[in-house]
């Protein structure tokens, strides 16, 4: 009950009791009087009725005035004092009490403020020390988080209930598609997010089987990893590996899932398999014809000439077929061959520039390099190719005694020719043959490779010859297959260490009890919330439309800014001018946006299994309710309203709008009047309200809902 009403109820009750007592005494007194005395008193009171009545009214008026004074000077300030002291002690240490009241109350407030000041200073010192100690470990964590998010494999870490505790960017990419139509598919399959169930994206049976396999493997202590293949929503084949996370008792408390997209690899392998298979069959068939025909000819030397011609014809035809088949297979195989050594596309000029720089580090060596007019693109493993060039130059120095070389690049048909030229005699064929097979050690302990092998990996050829066109210069020429110009491949995002870690994980979820037990009896701090807000064309749910929905998730008391929902909605009607001034959303911004019937199912999926939180939730819920029939989505989630929760914790305050609560709880609001901005602000307030509620003995969802119902704001209907 409102404290003012409560006080007046108390005064009224006391007054009634006092009056009853007075009347009882008067009645007893009256009974003891003689009839003559009664007549005298009766006469006196009738004569002076007006005076007696005025005196009673005056006394009553004075009493009410005094009581009102007590209420405003002592009772209400004391209530406010309690509420604001709670704020100082729990969520906003910088808050200071500023109230009007009696001198004693004011002194008390000053004393509390002084205590708060000291406490805050002390807290600041402790915080500074903690901050300093944390900085170092934070750095390491940030590196880990950044590396995790750039891993080529998708990673999901789940607790034993299948709730996602950690995920990286790649996992999200693998399981979620971002474009229009595909988002519809997301709906059927669930989303990747902290606290969400992994079974929404991977079939439960598959995972249970993998975990059973791991559990069996752990018993025998020989195998603790299980692999399986699953299909992502974009029909990509993913190889998944499940690795258990064990506690100190070696019980499974969670598992790590590592995903690798093997679609391309499998396609390549299956192409290669079918190539090999058809090659084998083709060769077998052709050889069968040849062999059979030859054996006939050998066995029956006296066959007729026409028959002999027929058999030799078969042999000839089949040998040609065989040759063609080998050519074709080799052509197809070479594509696969290329993919085995990771080659990087680069311009031949850049390669030679690097070689020149490295070669000239050796005193006395000079390389003159004539850059080609057009960029010539090649695919190389830069390290081995540069090493091969340096090796060639060194050998040439030894063989020819020259220290000055010229390099040129030419582009001819499908090849890039790189020439190393020098004055003097050409390299003998025998010398080059030896050089070709000489071992070049790529690294000190690395794999030894010959020049020939390096060339083979690049489908390149190196040979020595005399160039008659360039004044009989001796030359070593490298022929490399040219590739078209294109943007560089294999680009990865730059890893930039963030100032604060992106919230991709929450290890506290390891200790989370079952997924969907009775929500009502679970502590508020353990529940998962979807804080949301809508922007509308007006304030009448019967007539107005939703034009924007914003939402953010709260898991384990953390606001997950990476897991938000922000969608403009085409209302299919014009926007009133006054509403545009309020939310700043203009008509042209909504033209290509989806309708509310398309947006609500997605929002429903986003909020699935969570408690909905909104400020003045009655209005937003009514707006959603009005769309139930159209969108076929009914929001059956439990709902909490920050306006009502604030009225519970601060009953003495009359102002419970977002700004007022934010000011009280020390939350700065950014991006107010956008759906997502308001949802984030509401979320921040909500996380601060939870500890205040627990101070009042409100721990569970049920208790919070029931306390909300008793506040006066709960009577507002839309």
């Amino acid at each position, binding site marked *: 009950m409102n404290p003012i009403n409560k006080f007046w109820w108390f005064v009224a009750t006391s007054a009634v009791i006092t009056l009853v007592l007075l009347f009882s005494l008067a009645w007893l007194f009256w009974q003891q009087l003689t009839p003559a005395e009664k007549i005298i008193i009766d006469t006196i009171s009738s004569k002076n009725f007006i005076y007696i009545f005025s005196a009673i009214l005056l006394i009553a008026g004075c009493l009410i005035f005094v009581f009102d004074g007590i209420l405003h000077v002592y009772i209400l300030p004391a209530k406010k004092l309690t509420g604001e002291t709670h704020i100082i002690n729990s969520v906003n240490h910088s808050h200071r009490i500023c109230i009007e009241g009696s001198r004693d109350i004011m002194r008390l407030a000053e004393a509390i403020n002084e205590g708060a000041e000291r406490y805050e200073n002390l807290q600041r010192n402790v915080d500074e020390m903690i901050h300093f100690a944390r900085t170092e470990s934070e750095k390491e964590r940030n590196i880990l988080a950044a590396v995790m998010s750039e891993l080529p494999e998708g990673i999901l870490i789940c607790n034993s209930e299948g709730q996602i505790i950690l995920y990286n960017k790649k996992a999200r990419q693998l399981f979620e598609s971002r474009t229009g139509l595909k988002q519809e598919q997301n709906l059927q399959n669930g989303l990747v997010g902290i606290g969400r169930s992994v079974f929404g994206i991977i079939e439960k049976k598959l995972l249970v089987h993998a975990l059973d396999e791991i559990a069996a493997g752990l018993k025998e202590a020989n195998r603790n990893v299980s692999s399986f293949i699953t299909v992502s929503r974009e029909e990509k084949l993913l190889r998944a590996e499940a690795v258990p996370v064990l506690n100190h008792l070696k019980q499974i408390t969670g598992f790590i899932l590592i995903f690798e997209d093997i679609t391309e690899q499998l396609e390549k392998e299956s192409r290669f398999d079918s190539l090999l298979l058809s090659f084998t069959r083709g060769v077998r068939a052709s050889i069968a014809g040849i062999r059979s025909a030859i054996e006939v000819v050998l066995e029956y030397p006296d*066959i007729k000439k026409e028959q002999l011609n027929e058999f030799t014809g078969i042999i000839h035809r089949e040998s040609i077929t065989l040759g063609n088949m080998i050519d074709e297979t080799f052509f197809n195989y070479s594509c696969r061959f290329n993919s085995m050594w990771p080659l990087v596309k680069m311009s031949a000029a850049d390669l030679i520039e690097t070689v020149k720089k490295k070669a000239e580090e050796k005193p006395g060596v000079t390389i003159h390099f004539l850059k080609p007019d057009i960029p010539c693109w090649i695919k190389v493993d830069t390290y081995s190719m540069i090493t091969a060039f340096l090796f060639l130059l060194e050998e040439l120095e030894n063989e020819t005694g020259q220290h000055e070389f010229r390099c040129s690049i030419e582009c001819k048909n499908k090849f890039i020719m790189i020439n190393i030229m020098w004055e003097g005699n050409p390299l003998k064929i025998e010398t080059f043959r030896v050089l070709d097979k000489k071992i070049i050690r790529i690294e000190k302990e690395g794999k030894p490779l010959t020049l020939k092998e390096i060339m083979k990996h690049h489908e390149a050829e190196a040979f020595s010859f005399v160039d008659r066109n360039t004044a009989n210069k001796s030359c070593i020429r490298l022929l490399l297959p040219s590739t078209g110009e294109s943007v560089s491949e294999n680009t990865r995002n730059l890893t930039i260490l963030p100032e604060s870690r992106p919230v991709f994980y929450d290890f506290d979820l390891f200790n989370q009890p079952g997924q969907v037990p009775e929500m009502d009896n679970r502590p508020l701090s353990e529940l998962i919330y979807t804080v949301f807000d809508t922007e509308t064309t007006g304030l009448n749910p019967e007539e107005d439309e939703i034009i924007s929905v914003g939402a953010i998730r709260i898991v384990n008391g953390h606001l997950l800014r990476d897991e938000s929902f922000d969608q403009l909605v085409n209302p299919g009607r014009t926007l009133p001018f006054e509403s545009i001034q309020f939310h700043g959303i203009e008509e042209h911004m909504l033209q290509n946006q989806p309708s509310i019937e398309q947006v609500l199912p997605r929002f429903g999926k986003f909020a699935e299994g969570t408690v909905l939180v909104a400020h003045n939730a009655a209005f937003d819920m009514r707006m959603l309710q009005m769309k139930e029939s159209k969108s076929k989505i009914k929001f059956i989630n439990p709902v909490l309203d920050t306006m009502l929760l604030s009225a519970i914790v601060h009953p003495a305050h009359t102002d419970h709008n977002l700004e007022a609560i934010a000011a009280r709880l020390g939350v700065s609001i950014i991006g107010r009047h956008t759906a997502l901005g308001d949802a984030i602000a509401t979320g921040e307030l909500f996380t601060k309200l939870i500890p205040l509620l627990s101070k009042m003995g409100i721990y569970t969802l049920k208790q919070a809902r029931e306390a909300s119902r008793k506040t006066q704001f709960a009577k507002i209907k839309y």
Partner: protein
Amino acid sequence: MQPKILIADDEQSIVVPLEFLMEQKGYQVMAAYNGEEAIEKIISFNPDLILLDIMLPIIDGFEVCQMIRSNPNWKDIKIIFVSAMGREVDIAKGLALGADAYITKPFANIEIINKVKEVLEHNK
């Protein structure tokens, strides 16, 4: 009476030498170049043995074999697969479908002659 052999293969370079060989060994020979033709020739020619390729156009050799084995009138026809499909699984499948023997290409002529002889004699 000379045993009748049907050679079913789409490669002329296989059919021609086989036809010659089998004739030399005294068999009556007929050739079919696809699965459908093979079935027609079975009806008209009523062979004792079929040298059957697997990769035949229209109806493949496995299906031809199944059709023969599912027809009680043709239960005595012997089937030898002569195929370039040489994986163990192909051989196992061929034999499971009811073939009497499986020869992978390339083969030695003597090998095929002996196999034909062996299968036909087993019949008697």
